[in-house]
């Protein structure tokens, strides 16, 4: 039955040409966009953003008072005070306020050198999220509440973080392994303060993201063992802000037994601010989506229009199996279409973008594979949905319109900022457009304060969960189609 339906599909020249057109549209859109994209910084090529040990783009800039550590060792300190400023925050944007952003950080760190992106582990106090143990940019574990004392202990490649409220009874937060950590590392105290980022809806649609300079200052005492500190502004570029020039430069001050460090920046995974995400290269898939919806709906509705459905049901009278076999063939054909489109587009687009000076955030093999397979699945599930609609409605135009309305329109509304962020999130949770989450290469992180929004390509559901929503919709329509075709006369 599957073979018969495949023969049927492949012997319709229109369908096969349409699927080729879908591939061509995706590839052409991707390559033309990539070829036309050029990025440069002040006349020269842009420096690549730092890449963390796990291969993802990171932000790695902070104030670091450090000294070398050979082999195993421990560092303990108490954070006696932590203060900060935010420049011209909303609502009035007219003054510098003495406040800290929630993820302002002060603590201890062991790092493989001072090069941005190098492996590290840290135990730290934050402005609003208590004590944490963080490592290698994405690792984040919460420590005990109320602690001010921090301790970092290295044994080989394993680093253990502790926190304490009184300096005598210690709680272990977590032990992490930094693979390949050399014998000599840098150990020390650090301060970072991420920018204050807000997003406002623009009256005409779209949104404006604003980032404001912030700075945090922490006083450490009871530092043991102390002494021998070197200061570095890790990952620091440019001349600095007016605040740093005229009020408080970033740096380290030692007085008596205490160490005061001021600094800005963050130690965290980066988002799309580092460069366009990988999935932007397959944006042409959106055009392919229309083609696939038409092909899938027609696959069944044309049979109704010509009366061919009777021949089909005479040849294969078990109607539910016939409907499912057709669905399977449509799924497979469109899945392969998406897969080929992705495999043709991605490598060439990436090379072209790179040649044009544009940095595309690298992704791991798993994420890359998910996006390639995701291109196939997004197309095939949309096709399945349109096909199911076709079985239910038996009218080509109606089925196509419904499929576009359910899959394409919510995605457009949600990602172009024409509806408020929260409404957009709901659209991407409950409509079949949720499945586009499978293409999201850069996740949203809890330990980063950023106005993640669908308009920037951040989906409310995890990749496979989002795809699951779409799959449920598609399956539901095919199931409805089965019910419909089994009930009535053909």
């Amino acid at each position, binding site marked *: 039955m599957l073979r018969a339906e495949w023969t049927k599909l492949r012997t319709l020249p229109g369908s096969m040409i349409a699927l080729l057109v879908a591939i061509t549209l995706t590839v052409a859109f991707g390559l033309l966009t990539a070829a036309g994209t050029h990025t440069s910084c002040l006349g020269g090529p842009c420096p690549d953003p730092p890449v963390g040990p796990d291969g993802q783009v990171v932000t790695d800039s902070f104030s670091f008072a450090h000294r070398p550590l050979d082999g195993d060792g421990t560092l303990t300190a108490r954070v006696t005070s932590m203060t900060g400023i935010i420049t011209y925050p909303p609502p009035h944007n007219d003054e510098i306020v003495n406040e800290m952003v929630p993820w302002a950080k002060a603590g201890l760190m062991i790092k493989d050198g001072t090069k941005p992106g190098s492996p590290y582990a840290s135990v730290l106090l934050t402005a609003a999220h208590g004590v944490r143990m963080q490592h290698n940019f994405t690792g984040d574990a919460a420590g005990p509440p109320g602690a001010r004392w921090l301790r970092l202990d290295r044994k080989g490649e394993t680093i253990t973080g502790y926190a304490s409220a009184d300096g005598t009874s210690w709680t272990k937060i977590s032990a992490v392994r930094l693979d390949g950590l050399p014998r000599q590392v840098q150990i020390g105290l650090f301060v970072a303060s991420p920018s204050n980022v807000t997003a406002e809806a623009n009256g005409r649609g779209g949104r404006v993201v604003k980032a404001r300079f912030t700075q945090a200052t922490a006083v450490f005492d009871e530092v043991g063992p102390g002494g021998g500190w070197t200061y570095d502004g890790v990952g620091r570029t440019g001349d600095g802000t007016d605040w740093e020039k005229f009020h408080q430069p970033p740096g380290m001050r030692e007085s008596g037994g205490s160490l005061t460090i001021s600094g800005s920046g963050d130690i965290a995974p980066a988002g799309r601010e580092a460069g366009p995400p990988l999935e932007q290269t397959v944006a042409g898939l959106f055009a392919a989506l229309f083609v696939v919806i038409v092909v899938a709906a027609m696959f069944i509705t044309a049979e109704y229009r010509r009366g061919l459905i009777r021949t089909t049901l005479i040849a294969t*009278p078990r109607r539910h199996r016939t409907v499912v076999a057709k669905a399977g063939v449509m799924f497979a054909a469109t899945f392969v279409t998406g897969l080929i489109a992705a495999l043709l587009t991605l490598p060439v687009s990436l090379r072209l973008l790179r040649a044009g000076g544009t940095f595309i955030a690298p992704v791991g093999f798993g994420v890359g594979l998910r996006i390639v397979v995701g291109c196939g699945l997004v197309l095939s599930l949309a096709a399945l949905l349109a096909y199911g609609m076709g079985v239910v409605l038996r009218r080509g135009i109606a089925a196509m319109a419904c499929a576009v309305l359910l899959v394409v329109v919510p995605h457009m509304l949600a990602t172009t900022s024409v509806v408020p962020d929260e409404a957009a999130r709901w659209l991407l949770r409950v409509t079949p457009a949720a499945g586009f989450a499978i293409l999201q290469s850069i996740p949203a992180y809890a330990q980063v304060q950023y106005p993640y929004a669908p308009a920037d390509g951040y989906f409310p559901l995890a990749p496979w969960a989002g795809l699951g929503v779409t799959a449920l919709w598609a399956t539901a329509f095919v199931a409805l189609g089965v019910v419909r075709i089994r009930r009535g006369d053909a």
Partner: protein
Amino acid sequence: MRANTIEVSRLCKRYGPAVALDDMTFTVRPGHVTGFVGPNGAGKSTTMRVILGLDRADAGTALVGGRRYAELTRPLTHVGALIDPGALAPTRSGRNHLLWLAHSQRLPARRVDEVLDLVGLAKAARRHAGGYSLGMKQRLGVAAALLGDPPILILDEPFNGLDPEGIVWMRELLRDLAAQQRSVLIASHLMSELQDLAGHLVMVGRGHVVADEPVAALTGRHGSLEAAYLALTRTEVEFRAAR
């Protein structure tokens, strides 16, 4: 010999207030062509669709070879049907139309070429079916019906659109098929054609059988099949016209 009979038993079906089948009962046996005649709207098409499992009867049964059509595996090897010769995808070639049907019955592609030769469509087989004349579509439909070499054939108006040569060919083909001990049910309005061709006749009106007997018996009583038809269906037509 139930293996190649069509047994229609007490079929009833309504479409809303309209009665399509009203206790329709007859049996088609192998060895001769059975004509299936009656005025438009008498229930011929509905009966055939119920036999083929396309429409559901409100009551009664229709069995092919002793089984319901929907229960057949590889049904085209049990029953061949020509219902609507125009039911084709216009851009698919005639050969490919038969090819997907063959695949659906797990028949080899070789069989497709055999039936194409049999119906004389071998030359046009690779052209788009949308460009076929009605006669060619009929031949393609017959090819599809014969694809599974079935012991039972159900053909709706097989002579439609055929040229004189095609009519002669079709007549011989149907005779041969019946002579091979197949059951052949032909719905047609061409009484003169059936008079020469059919051995048995099922005449229906208003959803039930009004005559079910050998053609020879009918022509013996009424002189010709046409006269028999007009005599036997008059009441049915008048009754309906008066309603």
